[in-house]
């Protein structure tokens, strides 16, 4: 059967599954809509968190990124997993004990201030919007590339699906569809990874295959190091950029993960404090299944690609090469007209002088889009059509599940934090629920619109979302739990410092004409959130020393959330 028919069938089945789950799990109350009634089993929540967390970028782009960055790609692997340790140890159990619906809820009550709540709401909205637009774009691309639907229609279909189950089920519907989406995406990622691992190093476990031996008896990574240096690139397993920058980028990603509202809110959905801890462990385990396979996929794909194309006659390349050339993700230009593909690092001047020029090479002839490493893997390894279709369904599952989680944060921020807690405190639960549904409807349409016409800042999702979350929420929440002395003035001053500093730094280097030579200590905008976080901590602690201590009721809240069992005076929910 033709790949396109397979894709239609598999994507159709998975979509029908998501819709079925959504109808089965409709929400009836605000508590169900915001936090699934707080009754989700920790393992189920772990799975939902994993799907929520792993976006189109994790699924499609990450292995490709690592493929081209080699060792340095570890900053994404560690950065996007290490935050869960912080979540489990420093945030999730206490926020669960606090027992409200949103992150701005915590900030607003812990710092007894509507200003603090408002700052938190604005951050949550900005971070979530930037992130969701990227997901919508991913959905549009997946549809347009594999089903030959126009890009815009792809987004419209994606919007319609997400709208349907988020509108009906709120957090409850989203949670159970995310479980289904996790199963689809992990299956779709591991099946081709296993096939290609067997094909390359004869080991059915890709995680171990990364350290395996190729058919000629050399270790995969040794071979890859050698292939890379032969073409003028850095050794695959060696670091090539500043250690300081890598340190800061990794830290910003970890701290950002622990501060992202759509991740934190997932821990409000489990019944108990001990479940919140456990759930973070399960979430990371489910995420690690993909994240430890990704470096293997990256190394396999890179070795395979170099072996298949380097110095080979263009006319004898396998069929997949021509297929992907059509999409524009692979481009070959025979600069020296010798009919062979020269792929090498033409930015390496010693290599160009010593190897390339004596051989009559006129520059690198092959341009490869990094996304191809995951998308084309099944074809490169000669896998059947249904595996390719599965990868498409997996990419869509990853994008849709993340989009849904983010849209929920956006709608709760509006209906709960802005309306109920600030502008219209008198609305009934029924009205609030209606407002939440309306907000999700409006948010999804806006996200779809920006997906089709992306504003400039969206391309820098990583820098913005993680930087701002790390510099604002993370310190405010940590201090709110671990320091009884932290007061409103300190927290607000800290958050504003972190936000303004990080915002200006990113803006200056991304749009304001700054160049990398001007980086402070060589820190790129992706890593600056770490410094913003440090400034936030310093300012918050200093200001709080010179301003009045928080009121007694607030200190009592802090004491209460530090202990799992509810004291008799106050109930949970």
């Amino acid at each position, binding site marked *: 059967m033709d790949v396109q028919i397979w894709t239609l069938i598999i994507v159709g089945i998975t979509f029908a599954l998501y819709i079925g789950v959504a109808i089965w799990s409709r929400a009836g109350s605000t508590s169900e809509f915001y936090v699934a009634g707080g009754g989700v089993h920790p393992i189920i929540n772990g799975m939902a968190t994993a799907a929520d967390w792993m976006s189109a970028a994790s699924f499609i782009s990450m292995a490709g990124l*690592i493929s081209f960055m080699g*060792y340095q*790609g*570890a900053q994404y*692997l*560690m950065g996007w*997993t*290490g935050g*869960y*340790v912080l979540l*489990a*140890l*420093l945030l999730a*159990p206490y926020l669960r004990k606090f027992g409200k619906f949103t992150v701005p809820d915590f900030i607003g009550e812990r710092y007894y201030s509507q200003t603090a709540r408002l700052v938190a709401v604005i951050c949550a909205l900005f971070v979530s919007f930037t992130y969701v637009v990227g997901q919508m774009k991913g959905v549009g691309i997946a549809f347009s590339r594999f089903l030959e639907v126009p890009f815009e229609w792809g987004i419209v279909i994606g919007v319609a699906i997400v709208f349907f189950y988020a509108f009906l089920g709120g957090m409850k519907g989203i949670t159970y569809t995310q479980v289904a989406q996790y199963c689809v995406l992990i299956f779709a990622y591991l099946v081709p990874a296993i096939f290609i691992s067997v094909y390359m190093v004869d080991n059915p476990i890709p*995680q171990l295959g*990364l*350290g*395996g*031996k190729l058919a000629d008896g050399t*270790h*995969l*990574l*040794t071979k890859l190091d050698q292939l890379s240096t032969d073409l003028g690139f850095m050794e695959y*397993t*060696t*670091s090539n950029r500043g*250690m300081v920058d*890598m*340190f800061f980028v*990794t*830290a910003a990603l970890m701290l950002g993960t622990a501060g992202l509202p759509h991740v934190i809110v997932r821990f409000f959905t489990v019944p*108990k*404090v*001990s479940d919140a*801890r*456990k759930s*973070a*462990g399960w979430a*990371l*385990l489910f995420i*690690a299944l993909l*994240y*430890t396979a990704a*470096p293997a996929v990256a190394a396999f794909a890179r070795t395979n690609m170099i072996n298949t194309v380097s110095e080979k006659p263009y006319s004898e390349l396998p069929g997949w090469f021509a297929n992907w050339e059509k999409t524009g993700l692979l481009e070959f230009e025979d600069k020296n007209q010798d009919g062979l593909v020269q792929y090498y690092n033409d930015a390496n001047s010693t290599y160009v002088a010593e190897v390339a020029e004596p051989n009559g090479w006129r520059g690198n002839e092959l341009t490869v889009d990094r996304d191809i490493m995951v998308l084309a893997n099944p074809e490169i390894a000669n896998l059947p059509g249904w595996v390719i279709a599965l990868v498409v369904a997996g990419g869509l599952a990853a994008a849709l599940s993340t989009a849904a989680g983010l849209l929920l944060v956006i709608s709760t921020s509006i209906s709960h934090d802005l309306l109920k807690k600030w502008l219209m405190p008198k609305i009934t639960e029924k009205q609030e629920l209606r407002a939440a549904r309306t907000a999700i409807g409006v948010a999804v349409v806006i996200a779809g619109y920006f997906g089709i016409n992306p504003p400039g800042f969206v391309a820098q999702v990583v820098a913005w979302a993680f930087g701002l979350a790390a510099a604002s929420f993370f310190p405010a929440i940590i201090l709110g739990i671990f320091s009884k002395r932290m007061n409103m003035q300190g927290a607000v001053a800290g958050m504003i410092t972190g936000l303004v500093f990080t915002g200006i730094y990113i803006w200056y280097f991304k749009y304001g004409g700054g160049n990398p030579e001007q980086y402070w200590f060589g820190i790129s905008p992706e890593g600056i959130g770490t410094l913003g976080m440090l400034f936030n901590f310093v300012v918050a602690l200093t200001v709080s020393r010179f301003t009045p201590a928080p009121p007694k009721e607030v200190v009592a809240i802090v*004491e209460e959330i*530090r*202990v*799992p*069992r*509810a004291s008799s005076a106050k109930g949970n929910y």
Partner: protein
Amino acid sequence: MSDKNVQNYWNRNLQYLGMLLTIWFIVSYGFGIILVEPLNTIKIGGFKLGFWFAQQGSIYVFVLLIFVYVYLMNKLDKEYDVDEK
């Protein structure tokens, strides 16, 4: 529960946090970034050790750390009688 007990419970929790976060820091930032070059001179199977910690090893340790914390805290909650019924 008396205030003194609450304080003891909290201090024990902070001790666990300190211990586990130190390991968290060492495997990722320590082995994976700062000490990656010296560790790369050690080879285990097909892996250079520093590279392995950076791309896979640290993630395995992260998962373990959370489950160890879950175990320690469940025990501590029972010991101080603050577990949820």
